């Protein structure tokens, strides 16, 4: 792959600038800038997300056992992923190999998070675009519009969310700030009553998740030409896979392919991820750009997340999700699996897998066990990697002999996808915006491409009065030519 065009224009001074800030329905501080020439042709397109780096300072100097609780405060959307990734890293520090009960409780918590996160994204954030159209009436293109026209879908989305949250509450101990997972294990298992309570609705969640996969497929079928070509590009890919090649969202080795599908490395131990992955910086972005060392900074960028995981594993170890995976891969001669909008379909396949995995775990009496903790030889370094809802999540800590964290490094899913999202918006800019009068609907195409990745950045703040969306068109002299406010 060569460096994608539209990243940097040589003479930006006299170009018209369009700013979309912040991206609606994207957590964190996202901004897209487009530079247009006098004929309205797109000369440059960039996605800027303000990466949050203060976490190192936040964590350094703290005793390691506080970290799994503290890191939940990095992100109000997927705190469980940080909680578990930190614990996996610190398991290495305390030298623990988890007991069966501890590992299964953690897995249950993780699948609960996957279920609720994927439900939120599909039903709340993306279904308005997908059900009504990217440039449909903006007043209708939201969850309320979905609830009005598709009440069952909206209700199922809410109840799937709630069920996932209940799984988290029972395994983590609380709705938020859970303490269930600790370095070396867990501090509680399930009671029989908790297990039975979750089992009551487990089969309904599977049925609704299956319906959601079918809905995602139907949307793809009904808009085949659009979905095939929208923001489609080839990318290198990275995900965890189990030792037998199965999809495993909690644990495994690293598998990477290049853009042609050739395996670059497989079952690579994640505790030496830095031997495979490096991070680049660009002057125009606060967020780093990770890449495979073997391919170099220009060509080594890659994509993570549901679309990568579902296409990259050899099989899914639950039957309904695996059947859907095979149909997904075969659909339209494999084009859905290569399309950016295939993310939504793949995400729903993963939601179905999570629902099946929760049901299977709830039938496993190890969840009720009392052997919760393990230990071993103390180490100074720990790396924890799991597949969070949005993609691969890396936590890396160094702990001194006084048990204080002296170094922390986190690479979150959205950072892994930084360049892939930039490529996606450039494809959209080139195909849909170039030379045209910009409207809200057209600009929403950019957001649709970004939202497919479900980026989310450490935005655990939500104060009243924040988070408006403003789109400004600024002319070559720097004056605001027009402005759209929404939010």
């Amino acid at each position, binding site marked *: 792959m060569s460096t994608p065009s539209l990243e940097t224009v040589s003479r930006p001074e006299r170009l018209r600038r369009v700013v979309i800030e912040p991206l*609606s329905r994207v957590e964190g501080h996202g901004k897209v800038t487009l530079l247009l020439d006098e004929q309205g042709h797109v000369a440059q397109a960039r996605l800027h997300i303000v990466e949050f780096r*203060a976490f190192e300072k936040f964590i350094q100097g703290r005793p390691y056992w506080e970290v799994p609780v503290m890191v939940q405060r990095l992100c109000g959307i997927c705190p469980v992923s940080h909680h578990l990734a930190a614990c996996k890293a610190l398991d290495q520090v305390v030298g623990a190999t988890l007991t069966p009960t501890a590992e299964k409780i953690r897995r249950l918590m993780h699948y609960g998070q996957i279920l609720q996160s994927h439900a939120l994204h599909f039903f709340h954030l993306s279904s308005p675009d997908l059900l009504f159209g990217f440039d449909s009436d903006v007043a209708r293109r939201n969850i309320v519009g979905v609830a009005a026209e598709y009440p069952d879908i909206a209700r199922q989305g809410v109840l799937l969310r709630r069920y996932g949250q209940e799984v988290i509450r029972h395994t983590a101990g609380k709705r938020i700030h859970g303490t269930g997972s600790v370095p070396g294990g867990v501090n509680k298992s399930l009671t029989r009553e908790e297990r039975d309570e979750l089992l009551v609705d487990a089969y309904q969640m599977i049925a609704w998740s299956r319906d959601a996969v079918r809905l995602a497929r139907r949307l793809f079928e009904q808009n085949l030409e659009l979905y095939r070509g929208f923001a489609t590009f080839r990318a290198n890919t990275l995900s965890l896979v189990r030792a037998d090649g199965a999809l495993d969202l909690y644990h495994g080795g690293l598998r990477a392919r290049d853009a042609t599908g050739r395996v670059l490395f497989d079952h690579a131990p994640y505790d030496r991820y830095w031997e495979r992955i490096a991070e680049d910086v660009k002057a125009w972005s606060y967020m780093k750009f990770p890449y495979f060392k073997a391919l170099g900074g220009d060509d080594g960028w890659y994509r993570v997340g549901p679309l990568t995981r579902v296409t990259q594993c050899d099989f899914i170890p639950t039957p309904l999700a695996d059947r859907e995976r095979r149909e997904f891969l075969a659909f339209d001669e494999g084009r859905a699996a290569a399309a950016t909008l295939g993310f939504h379909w793949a995400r729903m396949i993963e939601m179905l897998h999570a629902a099946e995995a929760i049901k299977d775990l709830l039938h496993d009496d190890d969840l009720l066990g009392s052997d919760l903790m393990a230990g071993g030889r103390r180490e100074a370094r720990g790396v924890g990697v799991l597949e969070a809802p949005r993609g691969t999540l890396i936590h890396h800590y160094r702990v001194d002999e006084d048990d204080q964290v002296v170094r922390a490094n986190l690479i979150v899913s959205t950072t892994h996808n930084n360049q892939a999202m930039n490529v996606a918006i450039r494809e959209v800019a080139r195909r849909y915006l170039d030379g045209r009068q910009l409207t809200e609907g057209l600009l929403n195409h950019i957001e649709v491409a970004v939202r497919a990745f479900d980026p989310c950045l450490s935005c655990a703040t939500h104060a009243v*009065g924040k988070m408006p969306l403003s789109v400004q068109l600024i002319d070559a002299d720097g004056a605001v030519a027009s402005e759209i406010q929404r939010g």
Partner: protein
Amino acid sequence: MLVFAIGNPSRGDDAVGPQLAERLAEAALPGVEVLIEFQLQVEHALDLEDRERVVFVDACVDAESAAVVRPVLPDARFAHTSHALAPSQVLETYVRITGREPPPAWLLGIQAERFELGEGLSLAATHGRDAAWPRLLELCRL
């Protein structure tokens, strides 16, 4: 009734709602349940079931005084949001998924300025928190 506090305890002034809620939980007023969340999301509409009334407590960057009380009504005009919802949007979601009117609701907004990770409350938010406490007790005793 339900008191629903929103905010991240580790993000500067965002902690002001949870701090107030913890104080209220310690007071253990009869008939008052306290919930704390990082952000409001769609499933929180289900927490409104069978409530006589609801008070949302949140940091507020456009508060006209240290602590403000505003009625909250369902609002269908949320064309674009982040992963999180505003209180009015949670009420609207409740209406849409249950078909019923939501309980009467108020927002107790506390002035806030800074939201950096690891920071404590600003002076403004500290003042707001103290000013909000008697207002919260009033709302609980309506």
